[in-house]
């Protein structure tokens, strides 16, 4: 795994599910040496799937597969003293620890920042949790869903008025926290000498969204004027057309705000007579007459396919796009031409077409190369290489329950 942009950076990933594993994957996919440390029962993602044919199998979780590429995997039972000592040994070696356990859990294990920083003053600890390490909710039990809805994002921006506010249909808060942790954590590693050592990088997924996404656009106005808005269920209530509309074979993001864009759309629609009505002259009056204009446009979109609408409107200078299904997103020629997808061979899943690097670094290419580790796959290798333990010592640790697997099984 040498040669990547992050070559030489040593990382311990002690995360489960999405936020910390995805953050650590950003390090491993760009060349850092990442050791994934799992409790004996394994990362919870191994139990959540998606699984082929929905048959649960600890080595066949799609969620685990996609977030743990390029990592070596070990097991360690931090709940006993020998296991905890083993884990601290890895932290002595590491530059970075990435974890997403609830703060109370880390304290229970004797692995909170105060304790682990004693072992390695230069360690950068990236903790990614729903609410963070401080504040009245830091002791709360919480998951991605709770974090997202505490951010104000759903109430303000997603859902129909009077109906329940919505999340994005994915781990939206976890991913947001993960990239925040990656950026701030990587800066802490990069500038460790300047900063004078390691530090705790405390990410609250809720806070990151409440600040940058929701706060940025709303908090100044609310603080000054006491006014605030809520979701409308329409893409842009103050300009039209600007919303998701049905078409013949799915949906399109219908957008024609500026004069040129509206002219372009009119042309593609074949310059219908209704479009020349005075009340449709600019985006504001079109929005004021949304209940009139949207049915007119919809009559047209329903007769055309999403790709055709996108292609013709884009060519006419109008930023309308097809709402791709997951399948359409995965099959688009554009991403294939950019070599975005990579085929990987996994010992249990077989050949799987994975998403590739999230960004391209031509001088130091990244992206997934080796598949996610099997549970405890690198126990022998890692404990020998990194901690310098002899085979007999590793066996002894197994007997003591530090590694969490039966002696002679590895």
């Amino acid at each position, binding site marked *: 795994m040498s040669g990547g942009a992050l070559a030489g950076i040593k990382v311990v990933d002690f995360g489960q599910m999405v936020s910390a594993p995805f953050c650590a994957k950003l390090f491993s996919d760009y060349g850092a040496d990442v050791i994934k440390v799992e409790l004996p029962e394994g990362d919870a993602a191994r139990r959540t799937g998606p699984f082929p044919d929905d048959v649960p199998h600890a080595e066949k979780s799609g969620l685990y597969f996609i977030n743990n590429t390029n990592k070596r995997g070990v097991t360690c039972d931090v709940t006993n003293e020998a296991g905890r000592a083993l884990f601290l040994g890895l932290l002595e070696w590491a530059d970075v620890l990435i974890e997403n356990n609830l703060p109370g859990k880390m304290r229970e294990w004797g692995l909170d920042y105060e304790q682990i920083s004693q072992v390695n003053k230069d360690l950068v600890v990236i903790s990614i949790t729903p609410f963070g390490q401080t504040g009245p909710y830091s002791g709360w039990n919480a998951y991605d869903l709770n974090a997202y809805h505490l951010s104000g994002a759903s109430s303000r921006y997603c859902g129909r008025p009077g109906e329940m*506010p919505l999340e994005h249909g*994915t781990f939206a808060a976890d991913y947001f926290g993960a990239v925040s942790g990656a950026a701030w954590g990587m800066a802490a590693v990069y500038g460790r000498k300047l900063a004078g050592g390691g530090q705790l990088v405390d990410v609250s997924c809720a806070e990151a969204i409440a600040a*940058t996404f929701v706060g940025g656009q709303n908090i100044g*106005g609310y603080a000054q004027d006491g006014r605030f808005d809520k979701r409308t269920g329409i893409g842009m209530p103050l300009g039209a057309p600007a919303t*998701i509309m049905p078409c013949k074979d799915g949906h399109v993001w219908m957008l024609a705000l500026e004069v040129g864009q509206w002219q372009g759309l009119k042309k593609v629609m074949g310059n219908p007579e209704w479009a020349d009505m005075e009340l449709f002259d600019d985006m504001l009056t079109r929005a004021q007459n949304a209940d009139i204009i949207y049915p007119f446009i919809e009559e047209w979109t329903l007769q055309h396919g999403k790709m055709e609408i996108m292609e013709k409107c884009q060519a006419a200078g109008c930023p309308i*796009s097809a709402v*791709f299904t997951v399948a359409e997103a995965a099959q688009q020629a554009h991403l294939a031409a950019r070599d975005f997808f990579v085929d990987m061979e996994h010992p249990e899943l077989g050949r799987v077409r994975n998403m590739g690097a999230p960004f391209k*670094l031509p001088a130091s290419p990244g992206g997934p190369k080796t598949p996610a580790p099997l549970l405890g796959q690198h126990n022998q290798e890692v404990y020998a290489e990194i901690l310098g333990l002899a085979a007999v010592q590793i066996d002894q640790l197994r007997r003591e329950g530090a590694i969490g697997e039966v002696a002679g099984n590895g």
Partner: protein
Amino acid sequence: MAKALPLKGIRVVNFGWVWAGPVTGQTLAFLGAEVLKVESQARVDMTRNLPPYAEGEPGFNRSLSNHACWAGNGSVSLNLKEPEGRQLALDLIATADVVIENFGPGVMENMGFGYAELCKVKKDVVLCSMPGAGLYGPMKNVRTYGLSLTSITGLDSLVGYKGGTPVPVENAYSDPFVGIFSAFAILAALNHRDNSGQGQHVDFSQQEAIMQMIGPDYMDYELNGRVAGPKGNEHPVAAAAPHGVFPCAGDDRWISIAVPSETEWQSLQVAMGKPCWADAPEFSTLVQRVENIDALHRRLAEWTAASDDFQLAEELQAHGVAAAPVLNIADLLDNPHYRERGTYVEVTHPLGFSETIYGAYVKTSRTEADVKPGPWLGQDNERVFKDILGMDAERYASLVDAKVIY
């Protein structure tokens, strides 16, 4: 405390505009980099004119949302339509480590700021380009708005009420997401520069970065050929039930509740006072709760409907159940959690008004982020042109007169 912020000494020239690029600059600035946004009165960024304005007075230096989203970026005003303006930008880049831009492909080249040109003035420069769909490929020129870019990633197809049609997210979640994400990309490239002496041109496709977020459903498609659709607030891989947002007392008040494990389900039952319905066989295992989730959610909604959202969250938390109020904009500023974490801060702008922006959205124990008010257009001109580029007062004045520095 720290000797210095971790990115002290890194200079960034930011051509980023609207939202994503400025957030990239802001993130690096919070961490100690000196970030200089290049902009001009000749073409004022549209977000500088977004109301509401400070003290209600319109002006491109008074947009409150612009200030919050851009805070940390400095500002140098250069009219890039003028050859002298472009030359000065190059002179500044020659002193910088990083250049950021989020125009469409080819725009930088047309201005004379292509990667090859930048390398001539700064051999190991890191240029981070973040167009919507990357620098090359058949769809590279696709036009989208920030809030519709997600449509070409599959993400929009997953947002909506269960079994219904896609509901648009009414602002660009992707903009701050890719802004922060690309700061990581830049740091990776800087790390490589320090290891190898080599700069590079980062091709940061917003589409590909955002697509990472559909990972769970992408895998379900690859492994099972299934194509997911909107699922309300249900768990992305159906590994928890209940998992949703439930009504509470009052107008538009809601609580989020997530129950992935058996233990938490037991705790929820205790918190509810062990109602008979929860004991029914169709709710006895996670698999069955997921299968009968609509009925389960109806029951739970009946139970939550009369309660205060904050009180109920406290009560459920006391039982170990993951629950939290669903906050609206008005709740954020005085929420005790965000208060204690200093999520929002009031600062005094150099132009005299006070404004509320967000501070360090990640907390670091050794270094305290450098939080500044939103930049006024051209605020760093004198320092940059005179101190950094060594321009004398006479030439500076004449370039201001000629609207090159503008």
